[in-house]
């Protein structure tokens, strides 16, 4: 068993995030306005206004990692609101509604001056509207459109041929919504939208995506997996939340170079890699050690999570009109990972290119089309174990039982 050395890229990203958040809190205390943005909403519009923002799901992952989700969700329940629906998205609201205490994660989320989110599903609009009705924080909703038909192999189309992949109507809709949101966002945040700055933000975020693509391809081809997935996730996702900055590009490049060095040096997470595993679903934030818990006992390594793969395939959008390209980045974003046939074709493609021996498929209560994902993988000859739990709600899972069950399944792989 190799020593559990943390990737520099992960360590640096985590350090940066803590410093950044401390700075954001200090700025907020001095009166600078902060926005809260849902993960699948076009954050770059705020970047182009030089408005600091926190990503809702990132903050939920911090709450969950600090094992405070149960306490905050109880606040929703005490108000007669659901504490068992879309917990991952609801946690920051739950924290904001709860009495503030000295033990809030990282000092607590500053009160945002605006919340920006797309109306995915039935609950999202309700949940974010509570920021406005209960806390006085204005909510700017964006539509969540859907396509009747889609072409195959989206990952080959999205960078340049997104108009064809998504369809003009959906792109037009979000572009028009963003155009209309700008004056309101300027009013609420004090920022000024700069179209040239947005073009630069899009250039930088595309460059970041290209580094992530190289890293993903490198890991797929490497003879043995040289880096642990729970290192790759923060090394990719923290820069993702800083998309459109020079720091994020450099972070993505540093990750690539570090992984390149590991591959060139012939290093691998385990000396003898007996099983290569894929994790489908959101990260298990309250038990990230799970991903490394089969290395010693089974020689089994998680070589894939969606975070790097999405960073590689799902974000890059090139085009002359940066606002339109930004709309194209987000108006079909969830389709790429949750909507068949796009999602299932992509998972099978990734399973093949990463030569996985099996897939651990997290099916949350709000997961969609999971039967098709499992079926397509099994049809492609990839064994799948499904786990039913909520990734951010530690109440939904017994870690010991999960470990035993997955362990037995790994042993059963031929």
């Amino acid at each position, binding site marked *: 068993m190799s020593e559990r050395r943390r990737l520099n890229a992960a360590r640096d990203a985590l350090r940066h995030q803590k410093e950044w958040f401390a700075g954001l809190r200090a700025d907020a205390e001095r009166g600078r306005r902060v926005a809260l943005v849902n993960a699948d909403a076009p954050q770059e519009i705020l970047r182009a206004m030089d408005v600091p923002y926190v990503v809702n799901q990132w903050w939920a992952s911090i709450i969950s990692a600090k094992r405070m989700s149960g306490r905050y969700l109880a606040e929703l329940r005490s*108000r*007669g*609101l*659901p504490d068992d*629906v879309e917990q991952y998205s609801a946690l920051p609201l739950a924290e904001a509604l709860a009495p503030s205490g000295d033990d809030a994660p990282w000092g607590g989320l500053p009160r945002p001056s605006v919340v920006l989110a797309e*109306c*995915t*599903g*039935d*609950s999202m*609009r*309700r*949940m974010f*509207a*509570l920021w406005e*009705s209960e806390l006085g924080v204005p909510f700017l*909703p*964006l*539509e*969540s*459109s*859907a*396509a*009747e*038909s889609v072409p195959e192999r989206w990952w080959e189309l999205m960078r340049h041929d997104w108009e064809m992949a998504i369809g003009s*109507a*959906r792109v*037009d*809709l979000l572009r*028009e*919504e963003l155009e*209309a949101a700008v004056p309101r966002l300027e009013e609420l945040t004090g920022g000024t939208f700069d179209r040239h700055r947005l073009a630069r933000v899009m250039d930088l975020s595309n460059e970041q995506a290209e580094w992530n693509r190289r890293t993903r391809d490198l890991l797929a081809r490497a003879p043995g997996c040289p880096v642990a997935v729970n290192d790759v996730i923060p090394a990719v996702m923290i820069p993702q939340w800083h998309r459109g900055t020079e720091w994020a590009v450099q972070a993505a490049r540093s990750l690539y170079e570090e992984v390149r060095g590991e591959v060139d040096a012939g290093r691998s997470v385990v000396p003898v890699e007996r099983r290569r595993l894929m994790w489908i679903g959101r990260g298990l934030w309250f038990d990230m050690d799970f991903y490394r818990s089969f290395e010693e006992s089974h020689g089994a390594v998680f070589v894939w999570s969606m975070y790097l793969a999405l960073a590689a395939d799902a974000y890059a959008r090139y085009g002359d009109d940066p606002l339109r390209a930004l709309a194209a980045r987000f108006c079909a974003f969830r389709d790429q990972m949750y*909507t*068949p*046939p796009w999602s*299932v074709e992509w998972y099978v493609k990734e399973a093949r290119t990463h030569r996985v021996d099996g897939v651990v498929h997290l*099916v*949350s*209560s*709000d*997961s*969609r*089309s*999971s*039967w*098709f994902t499992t079926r397509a993988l099994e049809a492609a000859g990839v064994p799948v174990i499904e786990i039913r739990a909520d990734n951010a709600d530690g109440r939904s899972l017994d870690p010991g039982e999960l470990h035993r069950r997955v362990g037995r399944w790994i042993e059963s792989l031929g």
Partner: protein
Amino acid sequence: MTVPQLETRDAARLLDAVHDDRGAPAREWAAAGRPVVGYVGADTPVELVTAAGALPVRLAGRPGRDASRARTYLEGAVDPQVVNILAGLLDPGETSPDLVLITHESDASLQLFLTLRELRRTGVEALPPVHLLDLLHLPSKATARYNLGRVRRLADQMGAWRGRAIAADELEEAVEAHNRARAARAELTRRRATCLTGAECLRWYAAGTAMPPGRYADTLTEALRSVTGTPPATPRGRRLFVSGSEQDTADVYDALESRGWLVVGDDHSWGDGGHQPLLAAGGIEALTEHYTRAVLPVTGRDARRRAAIAAAGVLRSGAEVFLCYSRRYDDVHRWDFPGQRAAVGVPAALLRDQPYARADLAELAAGIGDPQKQVTS
């Protein structure tokens, strides 16, 4: 379709029979070689279906139907009513629609569309063609423009499907027919509390989602005569307003009313909430405006609006108790209930995680009291 002269009692019986067998008008229609379109979504522009010469039938669940295969495909947090509809499409018996049309009325509806599309694409199941009408409802100009494009596209699709574009006069005739049905339905809304139980009223509403619109208007008008007489037979029970999940059959109301409740009003789209103003002339633009702004599914209303609708409904119907009935996985109502409870001004109860077509009456009695015991004690 030939419309026989109906005796008033026959009209009432026909509406009840259609509620119990939603496929009956479709079979009659199809027997004459005409197509049937099954649709999901209160915001479906049924006029386009009618204008294309097809019968629009709103797909409903059926209690007792084996939904296990459908649940396999449509797993996760999806309203069991929609799972039941999928079960009906997988095993349609004699009443398979020629085309399925689904709107983005709710997340469950969208998941139903995606599931049908993927089952067809992969060849796992033999299913009719399915269209998605992605109507959205935020109050913005961008949404209105997007919807206009979607409705125009649907009109083109319906024309292509039947082999001839929909003409303006065909659309006008369809609008007129559905307006007649809307007017008859509005009369039912006005008179329900004085002459019908909630379950009877829901049966008559539901019949309108399966019959040709003109025939429904005639039948309902005649049926209303049958219950208007002297002396009026005003139904009895503790007056209850029902909000929350869609009730596409009368089973829950039957259960409630068998325990001493009287459902005097509701705000879901199979009940009073399905009321629509008459559609103005104006072609596709007017049609789009109607189904974007005048017909708002629950997910298109914010919590404040839902609370206001509930309060107005309770006041209008004279309800003594407000019930929010929320099916398992149809959780949108649970977010809105605290606001509704604060607004209605009468005792309010939430029944959550309910199974399809059933209600936990013991829980309701524990929370709000049992009318039967109050009557007998």
